[in-house]
């Protein structure tokens, strides 16, 4: 056993941190994975630079221009990007669409779509959920009807993160309404500029805008944009869903928040003592620290298993549940520690840590439901992981 990073991983970490140190503005407090409305240009420019470094796609196989790095290295990349709140990663194109195409795509599709993703020049989004199909994704109702060389698509997708920035959407649509629900779905790539595609923002609890509802009104898509076989789209589409279940981002954000708040309470004096000298504050920080470090171990465990050729099924779900719930506890406890000041948001002069804590706390309520709710993850752990019988 060896819980340390390898020397090569440490070298990579050093380069990455140096890069981020140079690229991120001083005092940067961005949100990390998702760009905020006011930093989209910066996100795109950083993405381009990450692509130029080869980091954006370093986990791709060498035959597709990647470096075939280990999942541990890949986790380290994600961890540091999240910890440093650096934008620029593109999980939809780089981590979901591309690996899916590598498995199911035709040569033409690979040629057409992989390179722009690798260059960081295109934004993808994921058209899975629908207003009536959340946890029960396979009940989706968006229809794609064959018409000559095209599909004509009608329906609506929701929770479509980044759709307002996206050039393309990978869509699950029903192509056979008579088949059992998992067997009549196809995976289709749609240019967001196609007539009939409209995007409507869905603002979230923070007031921010990541989510959208995408409406498809007689959207005509050439059949060559079908990935994999018709009506086998469910299996194409869920192949990469597991990627979404990594807990590394959650543990990284948790650790960063804790680090920032620990610094804050050490440096803030009240009634002649530092806030850190309050045993309740101290105990909360310790408890959350232990949880966050444990969440980190779970996440690296998943990466390590992948690198060993094992399939971390229940382990990925555990990492996702534990990581996202840890983040909710961490941000909640940190707000408790900050007390009245915890209420203050970015833009308020008195706000500690640029209002990052309430922001991340609010976002935590999406992490425990997005990409499979904690309840769905627990179902997976119980049934696929422990072999308990279906209810």
């Amino acid at each position, binding site marked *: 056993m060896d819980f340390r990073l390898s020397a090569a991983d440490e070298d990579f970490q050093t380069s990455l941190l140096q890069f981020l140190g140079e690229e991120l503005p001083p005092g940067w407090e961005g949100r990390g994975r998702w760009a905020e409305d006011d930093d989209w240009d910066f996100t795109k420019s950083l993405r381009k630079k990450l692509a130029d470094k080869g980091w954006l796609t370093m986990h791709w196989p060498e035959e597709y221009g990647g470096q075939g790095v280990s999942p541990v290295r890949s986790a380290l990349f994600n961890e540091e990007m999240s910890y440093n709140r650096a934008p620029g990663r593109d999980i939809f194109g780089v981590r979901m669409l591309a690996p899916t195409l590598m498995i199911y795509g035709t040569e033409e599709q690979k040629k057409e779509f992989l390179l722009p993703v690798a260059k960081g020049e295109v934004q993808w989004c994921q058209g899975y*959920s629908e207003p*009536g*199909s*959340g*946890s*029960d994704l396979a*009940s989706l109702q968006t229809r794609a009807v064959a018409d000559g060389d095209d599909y004509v698509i009608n329906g609506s997708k*929701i*929770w479509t993160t980044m759709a307002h920035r996206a050039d393309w959407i990978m869509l699950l649509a029903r192509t056979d309404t008579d088949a059992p629900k998992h067997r009549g779905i196809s995976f289709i790539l749609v240019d967001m500029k196609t007539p009939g595609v409209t995007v409507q923002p*869905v*603002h*979230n*609890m923070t*007031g921010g805008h990541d*989510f959208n509802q995408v409406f498809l009104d007689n959207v005509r898509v050439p059949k060559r944009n079908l990935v994999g076989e018709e009506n086998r789209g469910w299996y194409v589409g869920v192949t990469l869903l597991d990627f979404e279940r990594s807990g590394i981002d959650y543990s990284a954000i948790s650790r960063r928040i804790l680090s920032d708040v620990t610094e804050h309470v050490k440096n803030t004096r*009240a*009634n002649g003592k530092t806030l850190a000298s309050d045993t*309740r504050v101290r105990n909360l920080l310790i408890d959350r620290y232990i949880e966050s470090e444990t969440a980190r171990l779970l996440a690296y465990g998943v990466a390590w298993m992948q690198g060993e050729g094992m399939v971390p099924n229940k382990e990925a779900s555990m990492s996702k549940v534990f990581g996202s719930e840890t983040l*909710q506890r961490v941000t*909640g406890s940190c*707000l*408790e520690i*900050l*007390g*009245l*000041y*915890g*209420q*203050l*948001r*970015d*833009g*308020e002069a*008195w*706000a500690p840590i640029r*209002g990052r804590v*309430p922001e991340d*706390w*609010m976002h935590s*309520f*999406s992490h*425990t*439901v*997005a990409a499979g*709710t*904690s*309840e769905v993850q*627990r179902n997976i752990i119980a049934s696929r992981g422990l072999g308990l019988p279906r*209810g």
Partner: protein
Amino acid sequence: MDLGLTETQQMLKSSAREFLESECPPSLVRQMEEDERGHPEQVWGQMAALGWCGVAFPEEHGGTGGDFMDLAVLLEEMGRSLLPGPFFSTVVLGGLTILDGGSESQKREHIPSICEGQITMTLALVESGGTYEPWGVEAQARRSGDGFTIDGTKLFVPDGQIADMFLVAARTSEGSDPADGISCFLVPSSAGGISIRPMRTLAGDKQCEVTFANVRVPESALIGEEGNGWPLLERTLSRATVAKSLEMMGGAEAVLDLTVGYAKQRVQFGRPVGSFQAVQHHCANMATEVECCRYVAYQAAWKLTEEGPSDLEVSMAKAWISRSYQRVCSLAHQCHGAIGFTWDHDLQLYTRRAKAQESLYGGPGYHEDLVGQALGI
């Protein structure tokens, strides 16, 4: 033992619910978050007309002669509907403090206007220490001429942007005990030297930075004894703590109802999500939390009504409800899925307020410590 409301209280409660459901829908709550003044004046006027502002004041001062317990049922319903505006600050922070510690002439001057909804008030106590303890009061009130001159910066002043009057805590002398030397002043917002700026908060409520620079007030602005204002403020904080607990309890009830309603109606996998045992148990846990909240909140309100401020019951209520309401909201989000995280859904209105309210009038750790003190451990 009687753990129920009186018939009058029940009637007041159900009429309040009916009124607020109709006049204070979530759309108004959202609108007031964005609104600079955050004061739905029409609703305020209607509430005053219904006698709500005067419910806890004696008839001789223009109230309806009820007690804190009567006020409690209103606060619960206001919490349930997330009523924006200055009711809490005017009645609980302002009016009841004057009733408690003001002179007869101060009562005669201000309480009738409060009962009629003619003036708004608030408490300017907290400063940069972010605490409700006396050491946090650093503002100075120096004797000058036949009055005082007040200087200092107050933070987290609720509804400061629309308050007609501020109850200001300031030091008139220094003592070895930080509780000594604090005085309370009633300062009209029209007094020169006051600047007011709403802070940007999680709940989008209106908590202000209020700066007093060389603000002159006459001797008669003093509420209670000079230098001995802390005991009065302590009682005010006790009432505010219970009032906030009641509001939170009402909010927690609303979150439960919202969630049970959603779980019955939202279908996934061909059945209502509320038929899944995981969701059922979340709802059962929420219902149990809310039941506990109700008892600890009412117990505190009853104790305060009967015997005046009492650390044990009051702090137990705020500590329990602060933590419990977080758990309730968290479970509610799990039951709602992504929709509950959207701006347009009502759940998040409660979730944000629950966290903000956790910190108001002392967080759970602070109140747990007070429980420990009351128990002698």
